[in-house]
């Protein structure tokens, strides 16, 4: 009994929003605006629910003495302190900014730096893992762009910049477009499946 009801709601609302985007009828447009506002509110509430879930997961990990529970304790303490400081003083206060500038940004920047090393390592190993023409092409293009993007010790090799520009504007764009078209087709197919009720990632 429940499942058909959920499906009916999902299909009806999806159809209203889709038609409201193409057909500029007042009633459809107004309905679409209202439904989209509800979606925005639900997204914000879902953010809070997810945050509560994050807290509870780590609380349980810490209280049940699971491995590496110490880090969960650090998270809980950080969570509480940040919530307290930002909630009390405001997000633009100096204390709030200090937490953001000296903890979050450096940590995320470090992870980004780690990513740089990992990608370089993956590039080094790619020849060995997938010794085929596509890998050679992949790595060759990456090396060329890396050389051509930077100043190259102040040396201006003739044609290197033009080659880089051509690669960035023609084959790279073409490849990106092709992949994006495929992704767009997949997106439409998935959306239509949800609209038809064939895919039901809701209602258990």
């Amino acid at each position, binding site marked *: 009994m429940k499942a058909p009801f959920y499906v009916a709601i999902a299909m009806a609302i999806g159809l209203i929003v889709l038609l409201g985007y193409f057909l500029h009828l007042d009633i459809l447009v107004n309905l679409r605006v209202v439904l989209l506002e509800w979606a925005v509110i639900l997204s914000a509430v879902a*953010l809070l629910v997810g945050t509560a879930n994050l807290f509870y997961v780590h609380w349980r990990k810490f209280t049940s003495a699971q491995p590496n529970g110490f880090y969960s304790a650090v998270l809980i303490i950080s969570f509480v302190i940040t919530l307290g400081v930002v909630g009390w003083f405001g997000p633009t206060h100096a204390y709030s900014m200090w937490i953001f500038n000296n903890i979050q940004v450096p940590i995320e920047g470090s992870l980004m730096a780690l990513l740089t090393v990992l990608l370089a390592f993956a590039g080094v190993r790619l020849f060995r893992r997938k010794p085929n023409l596509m890998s050679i092409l992949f790595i060759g293009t990456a090396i060329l762009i890396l050389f051509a993007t930077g100043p190259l010790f102040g040396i201006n090799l003739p044609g290197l910049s033009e080659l880089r520009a051509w690669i*960035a504007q023609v084959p790279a764009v073409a490849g990106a477009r092709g992949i994006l078209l495929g992704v767009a087709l997949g997106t439409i197919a998935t959306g239509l499946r949800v609209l038809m009720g064939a895919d039901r990632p809701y209602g258990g």
Partner: protein
Amino acid sequence: MGEIRCPMCGKSNPAESEVCQFCQARLIPLVFSPANSEPPESMPEEIPASNDAAPTGESDWLLGLRPDESIPGEELPVDFEAGELEDGNAPLDETHISAEDVPDWLARLPGEWTKEAEAEPLSDWLKEETGETEPPPSKPVEVTDWLGQSLPDEGQVESAESESELAPGEFPSWLEAIRPVGDEAQTVPGRGTPERIESAGPLAGLSGVLSAEPDHVRPRKSPIYSLKLRVSANQRTHADLLQGLIESEGRAQPLPQRRGISSQHVLRWAIACVLWGAVLWSVTTGKQEAPLPAYTEETAEVNRLISQLPGEARVLLAFDYEPGLSAEMDAAATAVVDHLMLRGAYLTLVSTSPTGPILAERFLMKTQTDHHYTSGVNYVNLGYIPGGAIGLLSFVENPQRTLPYTLDMVAAWESEAHPGLPALQGVQRMNDFELLMVIVDDPDLARAWVEQVQPQLNEPDTLTSLVMVTSAQVEPVMRPYFEANPRQVHGFVFGLRGGAAYAQLTGRGELPRTYWGPYGFGLVVAALLILIGGLVLSSVSLLARSPQVKGEADQ
């Protein structure tokens, strides 16, 4: 009162019982008597005992089998004592069976035997048999002594001599007649071994006699079987495997140990040290100063559009990048936002990312301190737009309703009740802004901005321009929006390279200049690492593989 022992189960029964009380076997065998069919009397022990005749209708002379001694050592009935059968075929007590009941094959047997006996010279014992016994013409079958012993004899049966004695090991004639041909040649297992010699009954003295009593009722010592299993090597292997599986079932498995230092770890650390060392060296020594790159068309367009802004222009500035990429994005956007502030533009800050508003504040504090922009006066921070693309669409269609307050919870928009903040004076819709600038690191987010904002900007008489400052990874996706006709995005600054080029255009912006040299040096080092490291690793693996392949080829 006498007792009779059951031939099947060996238990004692009253003498007058016809059937055993325990196993229902007949105690008084039925004996064939062709002339008379008087019911035989029981009591095979009694001599002469009147034997019961075979029940009417029953023609099987073997029904009257006499009970064998079941328990050794027990006193055997007199009738079954050795020697009683020696007198041959004549039963002591016969059971009369009518001639009509005798099957033809049975009727033929004595004749044949007799003929055969006449054809061949008989052995002495057989001669005695044949001589002493005269089969009555009316009786087709000669009944042995033990068969007729419990049966009444009416004289029909040739049993003139109550005891016909057979020598030990001798077979009566009738038995010999029905003996299968070649039976002597068949070796029964155990026949040659010291076996039990029948000591009573008609088969007394014979060896290898099958016991009339089934073995299972004869109490005897159970045979001892060896407990040693014969197990093959394969079976033992399987059994050990099964035992190992069962034993390991309840045992906690140790967690797999993470591998210690391996060549992969060493390679990772080496790459990290080389990269970080190169950049650190370049930053600390400042020896990698490099000329700023030349600007491109899309960067020049941004510069032109900002230069053409009127004084106190309203500009919407979206900070939609993540803290992790703030190093690149700050460097890319510094010169551009600096140019905006130089023009005196009022800035309205928004973000579709939860950390965007804080990033915007940080950006202004870190890179634009020279301009002394004040929140609520020169710029307003409207905060976070929830809901992703839907929220963005909602903001584009009705910004006042979507974000009515600033980050500091101050009413931002102009209304009857409030005059509104200076940055939003005269702004009701998106195309009331002179310029929309999106600072974004994600290609999907960049596309979302273009797709949601464009319908508003395409309205007639709209002079609002859309420009973007993006990460370098966004360029392949977003460039077509610049090259389209009409342009959907009017200008781009792509990554640190674009930011450095813009800094060269304006002659301002310290951050991109500071980063450009070490950035370029790091790029070159990374490219060399990938090239040389990849070639070395591939060569090593090829060399390692070729002896193996060669070895396989040689085989």
